[in-house]
């Protein structure tokens, strides 16, 4: 499994950079990963709102929330999510939230 060094910590990730051990996630991981996803500077309150929403949903249901639900519950337009996470909700926000790569026909 490839390893990724971020801010002095080493994480196991898959070939596309998704964290492999969910329990190794910490807020610092998200902050340190942000520049690799094209996000400059400190993560904002809205970034955290989205990341925490994704993590809470995952904890309860074992999957990432559908984008429609995420937009509705967080009251964000999809366009705004792309502004915050340039690679989008699935490839960007979920990656920073420490989830593994989505599976199945999604």
């Amino acid at each position: 499994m490839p390893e990724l060094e971020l801010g002095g910590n080493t994480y196991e990730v898959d070939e596309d950079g998704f964290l492999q051990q969910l329990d190794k996630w910490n807020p610092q991981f998200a902050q340190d990963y942000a520049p690799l996803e094209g996000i400059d500077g400190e993560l904002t309150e809205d970034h955290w709102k989205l990341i925490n929403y994704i993590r809470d949903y995952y904890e309860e249901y074992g999957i990432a929330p559908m984008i429609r639900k995420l937009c509705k519950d967080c009251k964000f337009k999809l366009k705004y999510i792309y502004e915050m996470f340039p690679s989008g909700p699935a490839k960007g926000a979920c990656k920073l939230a420490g989830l593994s790569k989505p599976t199945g026909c999604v």
Partner: protein
Amino acid sequence: MKRQTIRLKDISKSSEQMVELNPADFMRLPYPYDTVDSEPAFKQLTEEQKKKYEVSVDGVVALSLPRPETKAEEDELVRKFLSGLGKLLTKENNWTFLQPLSLTLEYCAKCQTCNDACPIYTGSGKQEIYRPTYRSEILRMIYNKYLKRGGKALAKFTGNDIDLNWTTVARLAELAYRCTLCRRCAQTCPMGVDNGLVTHELRKLFSQEMGIAPIELHSSGSMKHLKDGSSTGLIPVALKDTVEFLEDDIKDRTGLDIKFPMDKEGADILLIHNAGEFLAWPENPMAFAIIFEAAGLNWTLSSQSIGYDAVNYGLWYDDVQLARVALKHAQIAKELGVKKIVIGECGHAHKAISVIADRVITGELNIPRESCMTLLEDIVLNGKLNLDPKRNDFPVTLHDPCNLVRLMGVVKPQRNILNKICPQFREMEPHGVKNYCCGGGSGFAIMPSMNFPDWRSSVSGRMKFKQILDAFQDVIDPNIRKMVCAPCSNCKGGIREILSYYDAWEKTGIAYTGLVEFIVNAMVDIGEPYIEWPDEM
């Protein structure tokens, strides 16, 4: 620069890569992608990935096949390959596909008529290694030399002098994932030879005998489906939450109070969606519910593990996995006592349970299966809904999923619907049974790792993108919004990725959706337009 010539025997000769892909060689696309610089940069693998995986076909990775560490390991894999090939050719081990496979191995006249029918071969700019007959001819040589009596002694004289080593086997494994099983080649063959089947049988050999299959199709695909209830990881409790959300969303958007019927015993119809719809395209199951309720159908969904995910990835690579999932689908329908199963907008699920599994689900389990297309056609054409086509007054074209058209013959219902409710509907050319694959067929749409997505969007999906652009050339201005109807989850995934890879919404105003969305969009009783465009989300 002149491209190097590739011969059949080159597959056995160790080299860094058989071919270097260069977008400048690819088939030209129509405006506004008619220059080489409009082609996005093709992602290259890292040096580490190149060392770790078998990449020596074309520098693209579908299988993440690790390189064996010792010669003994290599030899063992080669031995397994050969014994597996032997098994494919015995009726005890391969009663389902033995006959067409044997005919294909014996009767190809090498006329190469099929090559021009292949969207990957033509889309790539005629890369030799992608022609449909390339892998078949190699397999035939291996069979003739290593499995036929006296084959080795005669190999030099019969033209079958191929070296079966690990390089050959590893490259055949990767090459089995450079074909989308669309079977245009089989359709065009004057002899009835099925080179698509050769790909399928190779994948089967690799999976069933050697444990080699793409992670996305096997461990996080069909295995996950059997274990968690859905290859998406949607467990029953998550489905419940999802369905509740969809009910609320229907209410918010249309004012309609709709409850999704769950596990309704004795219903006329058990509707099974590809579970990807719930997560990635929830407007699709919502539209189904709106239409079925408005038409007064007696229907249900299943909340049972596996019963709410119609996918059957085994169809693409493993007969055992196919049978496991198909049996489960049939058992769930049987237990509910429904009159028939209706398959939602998912092409491969159609073919898996309607056609291929027909001899697996026998006796009482052989519950009637119907495509959603014919059912929807009946609803739309026979006036069961109040529809106003003017609500769909924008350019629309239809993508034909291979599994529905060429491989099952379900051709007219979907276009009869669009002809009735979309005034600016125009066909792609060619279409119907002569359609081209979305490029994501046979599982490619759900294989997002390393540089495979780039290959899929720019090579295997190239012909589809060309067709879409051609269909809209008269309205290609990005200010004119237009829609591709793709009535299949896998195809929607494939087309979504092509459009995104080429930035097509911004550059040409092309978006995509399923079929039921157009029907609900035309429903007079729904106030707001149902179809959402990318700039409205």
